[in-house]
């Protein structure tokens, strides 16, 4: 099957529109030093002409102005975070929201192990079914938005999501990766480690 010319087909403005900063939008997140950006990898069968309808129960206003993914929630709080990572499964679990439904087919949490030439290698954990064993993914760097590639470094966490969103009669299949923009600045664990190591002085 031929690969769709995604980057070429996508209006340049769309990529910009789909990048947003959660911390800016939700003051509840600022304490978590949590920036999130969304990189669209692939969209098929999407009617991009359909404008997102205002839906305050789903999207915060600022997000909506930027035409962020319709699946993004209105109310992010600490329960959505596993430490410093947005807990996506809760957000994308199948549900009906007014005139659209969101259905996750599969979602993984990923940890970048290595950047190897034109690909990066990551460990993936299946968040859709936690009983599934870990998998190793080789993902082309070309599939990551160029402005986000600097985040693809060993140790970076991300989420990979494949699913459908449906609004009215329009359904779209989407694949996203979510990379953390800024890593946490807390040094609680390393300073505790230093203290503990020192506490065993002879």
């Amino acid at each position, binding site marked *: 099957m031929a690969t769709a010319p995604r980057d070429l087909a996508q209006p340049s403005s769309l990529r910009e529109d789909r990048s947003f900063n959660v911390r800016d939008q939700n003051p509840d997140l600022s304490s978590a030093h949590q920036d999130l950006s969304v990189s669209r990898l692939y969209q098929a069968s999407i009617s991009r002409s359909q404008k997102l309808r205002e839906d305050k129960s789903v999207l915060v206003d600022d997000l909506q102005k930027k035409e962020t993914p319709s699946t993004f929630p209105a109310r992010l709080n600490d329960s959505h975070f596993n430490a410093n*990572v947005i807990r996506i499964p809760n957000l994308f679990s199948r549900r009906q929201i007014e005139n659209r439904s969101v259905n996750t087919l599969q979602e993984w949490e990923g940890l970048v192990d290595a*950047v190897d030439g034109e690909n990066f290698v990551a460990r993936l954990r299946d968040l859709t079914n936690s009983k599934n064993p*870990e*998998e*190793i993914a080789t993902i082309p760097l070309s*599939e990551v938005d160029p402005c986000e590639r600097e985040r693809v470094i*060993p140790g970076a966490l991300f989420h990979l999501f494949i699913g459908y969103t449906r609004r009215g009669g329009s359904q779209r299949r989407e*694949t996203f990766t979510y990379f953390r923009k800024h890593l946490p600045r807390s040094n609680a664990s390393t300073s505790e480690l230093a203290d*503990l190591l*020192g506490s065993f002085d002879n």
Partner: protein
Amino acid sequence: MTPPDDDVFEVSVFSRGYGEAIAIHVGHGRWLLIDSLKNSSGDPAAIAYLDNIGVDTRQAVEAVLITHWHDDHVAGASVVVARCEAAEIVLSGALQRDEFRAFLARSTTDNAGSFGSGVEELLTILRQLKAEGRRPKWAWADMTLAASRGDHPYRFEALSPSTKDFEELLENIHTWAQPSGRLRAPKRNDASVAAVVTVAEDLALFGADLEIRGLEAGWAAVHSKVWKDRAAASLYKIAHHGSVTGCYEPVWADMIVRDAIAVLTPWSRGSKLPSPADIDRILNYTPNAHAASKVRSPNTKRRSNTVERSLREANIKLLQESVDMGQVRFRKRAGEVWNVEYLSGGSCHLKEVLAA
């Protein structure tokens, strides 16, 4: 499976293509453990094995050595420490030096989410030891880590790190931190603890991830300053997954018997180890080289056609993490040769390690 007889020296090496753990029977029901990795159930592989053969880990394990804090060597180590109540817990001495602790205190670390990290594992171990009133032992070159006091002697000794290794670590520690001060996974293996176990006349050398670091540190220092007049080892756990950076020719020439038993644990992430050139080089040193698991896993998980199509269109390739815990077991009695057993489909002769 049954435990080894009292007079049997056993070395079991575990791997899943990422990570390694070693269980060593030094005779009469006494065990040593080196490093840790989890099996597909999330349990430490060595502990699961000892449970399986009926060993009481609370009393039978005399020492647990964590060679360094890389993720592939410490996964599940806190559980190992908790289960081995009577064991001496041994960590690299470099960790406790003031300079290193000062560096840590100024650094930050990534949260690795559900994957965990070496820092988190080490933190858990130290909290645990503190809560139980136990103290770790800090390993330095030429230090005895554990030894028997009875009629059936064995000796467990550290060969590294040396003072020079620690100096090398300090010189390069800036490469661990990004400009923000955030720690990233160090690529180097400075201060890794290589060790030797002596049971009667037999020696087994465990290379950890020790690499070549000039003439004053790393393997050159072990060879020229620490090994001294020890006899040659008949079994070698090859250093650093068989990489060329862990291969110091004088080690093979002077510290290991000709055609020794050798075993490695592959590294299946990113640049895979061993490479074909690594395999050729090792097999030139000894034809008796083995791998605790294969580099690749042939298992590809089946998923829905839609997900498969999306992955295919995005050119994302997924391989299932090897679900087979590889274990290769070596046993011998004094005066006999090592008996080799592949206890899972993943363990194999080194010639086959690249086959899926």
